């Protein structure tokens, strides 16, 4: 298992990785949102020995901390992972095809990177302009809207998050990947 934090720097991730024995990496340039069309976390992919993605982007959790909100139980996923590791069995949803990003989502990722550069280099006007444009272009994308929250002084666990979650659900939950059906 490899965990990749889609975050601004190593410092914000290190406290989360304490005591964890598997590799933890940090995706400061949002490569996974661009290359793998990741638009929310957690997103889990199963990758085999030959680098083949045998089960693509799926919204799975390592614990049941959010089950009340999401309806997703981690044990359902872990049972399937164990079967795959044991004898290669893949669940039916493994054939799911993740739809490609649309032009706005691609542009939003470029605006996000520009905003981040502006913020890192102390150009607040550039950062603000491009964070705003990225959010307009991809209003349901957590790697844009929610990732921008801590970078713009907004609590990502506060009211802004619940507002985003409501907008996302009202839009039909456009997660790019497998969402386990609610029980």
């Amino acid at each position: 298992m490899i965990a990749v934090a889609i975050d601004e720097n190593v410092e914000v991730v290190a406290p989360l990785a304490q005591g964890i024995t598997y590799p933890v990496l940090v995706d400061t340039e949002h490569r996974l949102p661009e290359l793998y069309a990741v638009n929310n976390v957690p997103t889990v992919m199963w990758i085999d020995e030959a680098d083949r993605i045998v089960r693509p982007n799926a919204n799975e959790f390592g614990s049941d901390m959010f089950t009340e909100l999401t309806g997703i139980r981690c044990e359902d996923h872990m049972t399937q992972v164990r079967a795959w590791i044991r004898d290669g069995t893949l669940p039916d949803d493994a054939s799911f095809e993740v739809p490609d990003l649309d032009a706005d989502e691609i542009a939003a990722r470029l605006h996000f990177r520009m905003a981040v550069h502006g913020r890192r280099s102390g150009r607040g006007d550039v950062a603000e302009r491009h964070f705003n444009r990225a959010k307009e272009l991809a209003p349901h994308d957590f790697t844009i809207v929610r990732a921008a929250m801590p970078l713009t002084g907004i609590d990502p666990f506060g009211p802004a998050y619940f507002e985003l979650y409501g907008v996302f659900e009202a839009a039909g939950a456009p997660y790019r990947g497998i969402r386990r059906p609610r029980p």
Partner: protein
Amino acid sequence: MNETSTPTIVIADDETVVEATWFDDRPVVDPSALEAVLGWNLKPEGLCRGDACVPLPDQSALEHPEGIDLMAAAGTLGRPTLADPDAQMVAIGVPADDRQRALVDRQAPDATLLDLDGNQRQLSEWSGTRRLLVAFSSW
């Protein structure tokens, strides 16, 4: 390259600063800058990296009296672009083909990431094992 060129920040695989002259909100760069920014060289055969070349049906579409239209060159490689002329910045995304390899061909693209000591690491370092790739975040 001339008196109108200005340092321009290019955000692509890495961040680089190149001299560019801006025309109609598009940066024009010296051909020699393409390799630093895109990893490809402009040759008579087209855009080349090592022995591999992407032929250009119309090389003149990239050419400009002051150099090469950087965004057009990136577009030839299937890479989306965004310019901010006021900030003198250009962002260049990954080739659409690289994402298609993940989503359609189901081959995991490699990526350069940081480990917790700040060292650059490649996802491909974990090739050869059955593994879960988990994207998470602090937010």
